[in-house]
């Protein structure tokens, strides 16, 4: 049986809302999007939505107790929470450079988690 998906496009500020009908075999019909890019976005949202993940991991010997990290590319949307939980238990040592891989191939998803900034060694008093 077809399922109707109402998708709000986020590609441009017009925020058009399209309708996509799909069943187990794939997309049956697409309507309502105002442009081609919107339509593509809608299809991806129905078949395999992905998102960038940003969160933090613990870091030792830096000015702050946390290092912000980001996925090297978008992850499956339904894995965001699981990945965030996984990363909450990760601890690294300063120094770190932006782009350093913090977790390679997280949970076997084929995506790396990398440092979002540089963090040097800091030996002064920390606020934590």
């Amino acid at each position: 049986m077809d399922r109707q998906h109402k998708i709000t496009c986020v590609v441009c500020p017009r925020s058009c809302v399209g309708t996509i009908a799909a069943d187990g075999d794939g997309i049956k019909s697409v309507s309502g999007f105002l442009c081609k890019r919107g339509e593509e976005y809608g299809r991806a949202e129905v078949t395999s939505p992905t998102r960038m993940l940003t969160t933090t991991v613990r870091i030792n010997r830096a000015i702050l107790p946390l290092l912000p990290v980001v996925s090297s590319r978008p992850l499956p949307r339904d894995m965001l929470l699981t990945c965030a939980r996984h990363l909450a238990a990760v601890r690294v040592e300063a120094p770190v450079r932006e782009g350093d891989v913090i977790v390679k191939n997280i949970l076997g998803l084929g995506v790396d988690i990398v440092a979002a900034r540089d963090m040097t060694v800091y030996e002064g008093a920390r606020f934590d």
Partner: protein
Amino acid sequence: MTADNREKLAVQDWPGRADVVIVGGGIVGCAAAMFLSRYKATVVMVEQATDLAMGTTKANSGIIHAGFDAPPGSMKARMNVRGNRLYHELQPALKYEVNFLGSLVVAKSDDDLKTLEGLLDRGRQNGVPDITIIDRERVLSREPNLSRDVRAGLWAPTAGVIWPFGAALAMAENAVRNGVKVFTGCRLEGFMLDRRKICGVRTNKGDIACKLVINAAGRWADEVSRWAGDDSFSITPRRGEYILFDKSVGSLVNSVLFPTPTKVSKGILVSPTVHGNIFIGPNAENITDKDDLSTTAPGMEEIISGARKLIPDLPLAAAITQFVGLRPVASGDDFIIGPSALVGGLVQAAGIQSPGLASAPAIGELVSEIAAERLGLVRKPGYVEENPDRPAFAELDSRQRQELIARNPLYGRIICRCETVSEGEIVAAIHSPVGARTVDGVKRRTRAGMGRCQGGFCGPRVVGILARELGLPLDAIVKEGPGSQLFFARQTLRGGESHE
């Protein structure tokens, strides 16, 4: 040091015996403690909240009234006029922040003018110095933002504005310096009585045998009295709501402005604070719950429309916070000060509503004299009148600032940007005689978090400093009472999932 160790230390320090126990660490209790510390006596003050001055003292208009409101001959009139004078006299030694900028009662109608004459007469009978009625032009030249339909004003130059917490703390610190022991988080649970005479108090921290109790328990004074066996009065909390405005509109008014009082109410006033902000309020609503400190939407409307009668062009966009105060109104309306007629060893200082703040030093002085007389106390040599200087960065000149930072670099780190409060001041407030233990305690002592951003920037920094100085984890630091933790440790949310 852990919290447990602290608790034990406190109990080790526990006085099993005292001459006088003061119940309630509001401004009346603090004033009584200070005046009693001039005598050779063991004095203990117990306060149920985590900090001093947390009840009515914390949230009120902060006005040292001149003393023309109360009927001549009443306890209120006597205490107010004497209290006002004491605030003038004590300031150089105690160093609390006060500004005697005068008050003005604004008359707009014929009826108001008549009332003004009555107030003038009453003030003169009460012994209020230098009060006069001034005409419209002089009123408007003093207060150019006042409503144009003003007809005249009653000018009382001895009225002032004060930081009530600061005044209470200054008195308490002086008391501690002179030997009084102060326990916060110490709740009275009952009395030890010997044939209708008090011989001790029971608290959650332990018992204290004593000869005399001063009941300065504010909103709970009726309950405390009843526990001792005196049920001659009751206390009703009367809610008053306030709005505080940013310093940027501090020039709106120059003195304490009252509307002409009616039979029902003193009315909504507009006044500078001692720190250069402006406030409006309070309304007056009798309630039943002695803990209900909620502001209400109708209350806000009431005080806004009331204040507009004085200052039509109210800068509402500059409001920075709202708060509620509860006045303890005694059945019978006047202050209840003096020995209980029903119980021995109990001295009441109850029903201290407006002008209670203005009267507090006089009340403290009076009850200490009563206690001294009853117990035959004598003055002690070596009483230290003066509180030490506590540098406030914002008030120093460049050279003083440089010297201070050279001595202690923490005075060079500004934690509160709105009020220019340095880390050094915060650390000093934590380690002072009745030191801050909570974020709001730091705020009341240093003003950190009291400005326009209301702690947005500095709140977390203050939490960090408290944790460091008290040796506690950051998530143990509270805003005010127990259970008012500001932040939660991140790991606690994860259950067993953390690998750390």
